């Protein structure tokens, strides 16, 4: 009989230790979010952001807290920040590469994110990257990336119709598209405005 009590005591002790370690990990995650959000503003290039050292394996604390989407969103935003959409591509040699990686990260969040509002924001940011990539001398490439940007801004509005940034950016993109020469020579670009709506509407009226 005594050895059963011993086994039960050892099991209870082990469970208690696991729970204490789990509690420590939960605290570390809480600290990591608060601390690294501030760090990101100062040193966004740090690669160790939002990666606390945990004690319990298999990401138990992270799963328990359900912070996957928060983490995923922060890392996606970091990719966008590093892509420097306002930077001059001729002054930064590998900026297109970083922007390409950011487009992949943003597209991944749009596919797999759980919050509609955040997916809308990610689509808006992806469209902004499209606009950044459209800053090229090649007219074909410019048109291609402008069409891509307009598609992403529309996607942002399908996720969240109240996304004012996406509405503004879509209107801006459609204005730029109207200025693009077509293969038939002059006129509005074919593509997003073909079906009517914002591309053919006067600026500032409807989407």
């Amino acid at each position, binding site marked *: 009989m005594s050895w059963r009590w011993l086994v039960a005591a050892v099991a209870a002790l082990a469970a208690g230790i696991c729970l204490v370690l789990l509690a420590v990990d939960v605290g570390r995650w809480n600290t990591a979010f608060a601390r690294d959000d501030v760090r990101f503003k100062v040193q966004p290039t740090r690669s160790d952001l939002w990666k606390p050292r945990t004690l319990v394996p298999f990401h138990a604390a992270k799963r328990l807290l359900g912070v996957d989407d928060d983490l995923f969103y922060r890392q996606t935003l970091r990719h966008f920040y590093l892509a420097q959409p306002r930077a001059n591509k001729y002054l930064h040699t590998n900026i*297109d*590469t970083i922007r*390409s*990686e950011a*487009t*992949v990260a943003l*597209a991944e969040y749009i*596919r797999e994110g759980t919050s509609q509002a955040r997916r809308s924001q990610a689509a808006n940011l992806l469209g902004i990257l499209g606009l950044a990539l459209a800053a090229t001398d090649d007219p074909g*490439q410019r048109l291609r990336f402008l069409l891509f940007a307009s598609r992403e801004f529309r996607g942002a509005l399908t996720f969240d119709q109240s996304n004012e940034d996406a509405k503004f950016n879509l209107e801006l993109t459609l204005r730029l598209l109207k200025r693009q020469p077509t293969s038939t020579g002059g006129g509005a670009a074919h593509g997003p405005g073909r079906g009517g709506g914002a591309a053919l509407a006067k600026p500032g009226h409807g989407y």
Partner: protein
Amino acid sequence: MDTLRSFLTRLRGPTIPIATTEVLAPAVRRTFLLRIALGVLLIALVVAATATGRSRAAADRGLVPGGVGGMLVLDVSRSIKPEANKTITDALQQLIDSHGRIGLVAFSDIAYELLPPGSPTSELQPLLRYFAATPPKPGPDPFLPNPWSTNFSGGTQISSGLAVAHASLARAGEPKGPILLVSDLDTAPDDVPRVALAFNQFRAEGVPFRIVAVAPRTDNLSLFKNLAGPGAFVHPVQRTSGGLGQTEGAQGGHTPWLLIALALCVLAALAVNEHWNGRLPVPRTAP
């Protein structure tokens, strides 16, 4: 309760009535611990064997995701070094050996369709000679020329190859057909965003794609791992003795020794379990 007890007694079979179980306590403890240890060992062995078998099955499925059909997008640009021909030959030979159907797009700075989707993979056989491993000859052009070496090997625009392959599949009524890219991944810098958009489009539309990296530079490999994901990369089965026109199966000569060893370990653990933890056989005797 009594009914349950009598049912369990019937289920257990005949038992030896003894006055006390105290004397059996050490044996019960030992058997209990042994059962747990053997149970854990068996589970671990079965999991390991399953994982080994699964990875082998994945290798057996071949290079093209899904195993059938699709499009091969082959880089024929000048950046492909002759040293990389072995990998290309392995990939082509593995596809030929699969006796499936596939299309072929060759690309450099532009892309064109060499074989339409659904062509027998045996149609790739004539291409093997252009990628045959030959020793360099002395002179200004040490390697044998191929049809693309003079006019069709300017830059590298991987996105053009991917776009042509996807368009071909869409025309053939397979818009979600798999795509296999065989390239050194040394695409032009301005092509990187287009490649990223192509991969994004494939993922969004559910188009499976895989990459065979042919002697890539480290930075290019790292970039494409970021763009396509590390899971997109596959390696052709290396042939033990390469040779033109060789018809031996690509998997020939590869015995799954690890799987066999794990299976034997599982059998041994089961035997030990039966030997040490099995019920004590009590021969039925006539009353």
